[in-house]
């Protein structure tokens, strides 16, 4: 499969820094398509029953930030296209709302496992949004450093190709999210 890199101006559009009218004519179609993709994403929060919230109990405030977003490069991997969304202005010593999006048309189920849910592949399912194969989960995480991977169909651990990744010590890669 081929990889796809969004133009920086299209990323600024998704960030809310510019409008569609600010884009050069040749980028407007790409911008419109990206906006349609984002608009089609289910914004319902996913509950995380297995998360240990003891860290959060120490936190003073709770902030939710949906925008602006930084849309990381969308890259193709196997049968899935993974997009990583993270707030661009995280709040230290606080909670940050992060949306994880996976475009995986052929997947029957997708979940998220990481340091924030004890690596439990059943704890945080992504919700399928529409027929385009977009899977999404919105989590509120404590500020700090988190590692994670997508779990496709309960068996395949897929790092987020749009995010930095490190060796997991087991021959695979973990994606890294620093809030």
């Amino acid at each position, binding site marked *: 499969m081929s990889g796809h*890199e969004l133009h*920086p101006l299209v990323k600024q559009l998704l960030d809310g820094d510019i409008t569609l009218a600010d884009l050069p004519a040749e980028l407007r179609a790409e911008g419109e398509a990206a906006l349609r993709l984002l608009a089609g994403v289910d914004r319902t929060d996913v509950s995380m029953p297995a998360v240990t919230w003891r860290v959060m109990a120490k936190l003073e405030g709770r902030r939710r930030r949906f925008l602006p977003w930084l849309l990381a490069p969308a890259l193709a991997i196997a049968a899935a296209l993974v997009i990583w969304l993270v707030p661009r*202005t995280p709040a230290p010593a606080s909670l940050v709302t992060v949306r994880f999006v996976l475009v995986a048309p052929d997947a029957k189920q997708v979940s998220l496992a990481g340091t924030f849910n004890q690596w439990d592949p059943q704890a945080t399912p992504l919700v399928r949004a529409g027929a385009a194969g977009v899977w999404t989960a919105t989590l509120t995480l404590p500020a700090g*450093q988190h*590692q994670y991977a997508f779990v496709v169909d309960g068996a395949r651990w897929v790092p987020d190709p749009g995010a*930095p990744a*490190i060796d997991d*010590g087991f021959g695979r890669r973990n994606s*890294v999210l*620093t809030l």
Partner: protein
Amino acid sequence: MQQGTGIAQRLAGRVPPQIASLVQELGTAASARGLPIDPLIDKAIEGSAKGVAPERVASAVRLVAMQLDTAATALRDGGLVADTLAIAAGEFAITAGLSGSDIKALARTGANAVALTVGLRVAGTLAALGVPPAEDIGLVSVALRSGEPVSALLSLPANVQSAIAKGATPAQAAAGLARAAAAQAAHGPPPDRGGGHPHLPHPPTPPHP
């Protein structure tokens, strides 16, 4: 003993008995030396969740224990009094490809423990993005020395990614940001024109090929 019981409770039902025993042993020893135990527990749980063979999980947990020791030593050599969060952040940075010397260099910036912890996490993230250690430590050091807020530090990986998306190599992106930040620190911040980050500069324009 109480520490060991806590570890056992957190691992109960999540890892094989031999891994639980190993983590209990390593964790108790680590705790006695002022090291954090969460990274050991997390790695054991992660390995088991991924279906990794117990022998390999054991090796990975032992490696984490060694990296915690390396990070703690580097921080101490850099002048930071023991801080478990900073040590865990240092361990992450080592996993991402940095060395004890790199951690020591960041500790020597004189940043407080909170800022240094964030700086280590950011440095590790930059390393994971492919930024070489010299440029990585150079950029994070400038940011730490300038006393910028933690939010500015946290914006560095996104700024580097943005520059990479425009065609810069990770090294060029980080070096350019470090130069711009150093120049800004020397001459004072530019007037706020209502856009972008209020503290650290925008990513540099990548050089033409």
